[in-house]
């Protein structure tokens, strides 16, 4: 049995289509017009909302084809391999930089005095970098560039504060003198010469004054 929907509404017939009721009068025309003005713009809203709802509920479209597990491993592994290779290359480059050592090395630990200006922290940083990058540490001492790999194996930085006693400034302010001394020591190996070098930077000293409260 099929149901004939009694009030489904494709194109609406004019009001009073029932022959028993005659032609529509002014009131009916007014009502029809007013109701159409109020309700016709609302048509289609429900359908649009429903279609949007269905679209939201629909499962996400599947990508055609399946990525094989092996390919997945391959594509996941390639970036890791590249990153690892780059790391190795960068490390080797840093290690293989030609180091500068004093001429006439004969094995053992060789002290290298860097030309550090006392009191300037920037200079101390430059000295430390020199050990790693191979810039001449002792330009005036006949240093020689060696292509052999240099391995830094020890680097130590010491900082200490020394009481420098008391003093009175020109404006009669009593102060305590504090000397802050910083030392850096770097040791590395030259495999070609089978020598161990040691670089001790001259202490960097900063002098500070701390006001003393007189009682």
């Amino acid at each position, binding site marked *: *049995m*099929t*149901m*004939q*929907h*009694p*009030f*489904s*509404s*494709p194109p*609406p*017939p*004019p*009001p009073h*289509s*029932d022959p*028993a*009721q005659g032609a529509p*009068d*002014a*009131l*009916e025309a*007014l*009502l*029809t017009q*007013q*109701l*159409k*003005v*109020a*309700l016709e*713009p*609302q*048509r289609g*809203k*429900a*359908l649009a*909302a*429903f*279609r949007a*709802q*269905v679209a939201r509920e629909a499962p996400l479209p599947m990508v055609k084809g399946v990525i094989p597990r092996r390919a997945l491993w391959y594509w996941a592994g390639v970036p890791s391999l590249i990153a690892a290779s780059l790391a190795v290359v960068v490390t080797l480059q840093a290690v293989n930089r030609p180091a500068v050592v004093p001429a006439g090395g004969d094995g053992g630990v060789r002290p290298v005095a860097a030309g550090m200006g006392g009191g300037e922290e920037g200079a101390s940083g430059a000295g430390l970098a020199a050990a790693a990058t191979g810039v001449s540490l002792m330009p005036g001492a006949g240093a020689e560039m060696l292509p052999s790999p240099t391995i830094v194996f020890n680097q130590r930085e010491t900082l200490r504060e020394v009481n420098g006693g008391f003093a009175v400034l020109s404006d009669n302010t009593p102060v305590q003198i504090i000397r802050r001394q910083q030392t850096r020591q770097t040791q590395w190996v030259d495999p070609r010469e089978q020598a161990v070098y040691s670089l001790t930077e001259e202490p960097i000293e900063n002098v500070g004054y701390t006001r003393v409260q007189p009682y």
Partner: protein
Amino acid sequence: MQDVQELVSKARQGNAEAFASLIERFERSALAVAYAQLHDGHRAGDAVQDAFLRAWQELPRLQEDSRFGGWLLQIVRNAAIDLRRRARPTVADFPDVSAAGPSPAQALEQTDAAARIQAALATLDETTRTAVVMRYYEGLSAKEIGAALEMSPAAVDMRLSRARGQLKELLAPLVEPADVIKETPKRPKVLGERV
């Protein structure tokens, strides 16, 4: 055109296109029912939208496919009542004068007429108002309205007839020129036949 029961059956199985066809078929009736509750086209549209979404969710619970129409209109009615309960002033509550007519005077006139008609419709009881909207918006016959509202066609005719008399009185200034207001013509013959 597919039969309603067939569409309902397909929709119950999750066929969205079948339900979309049902929306198209029942939209006017749903708007009529919602408008009878809310007296506002915009809010009626909102209620109908909610109701169809609810109906789509609740469709598996429908006992008989043949009762889809009445079941749906009940959902629409409930959605409209819910919307009315949480009614707040919105833009839709204010007449859009700029869109109502070519000139501001005409726009105001139309807005005033719409307000009077809404007020007149509001004096009717809910069932009669629904029948009137279905009649004059959707153009349904007494039999079709009766099927939707679960009433006999004769009862629908009686309600429509009384409503016409009431509305004619209330809306006389809009229907007739101000200086030639006539008495509401009675239709004893029609009423006699139908009652």
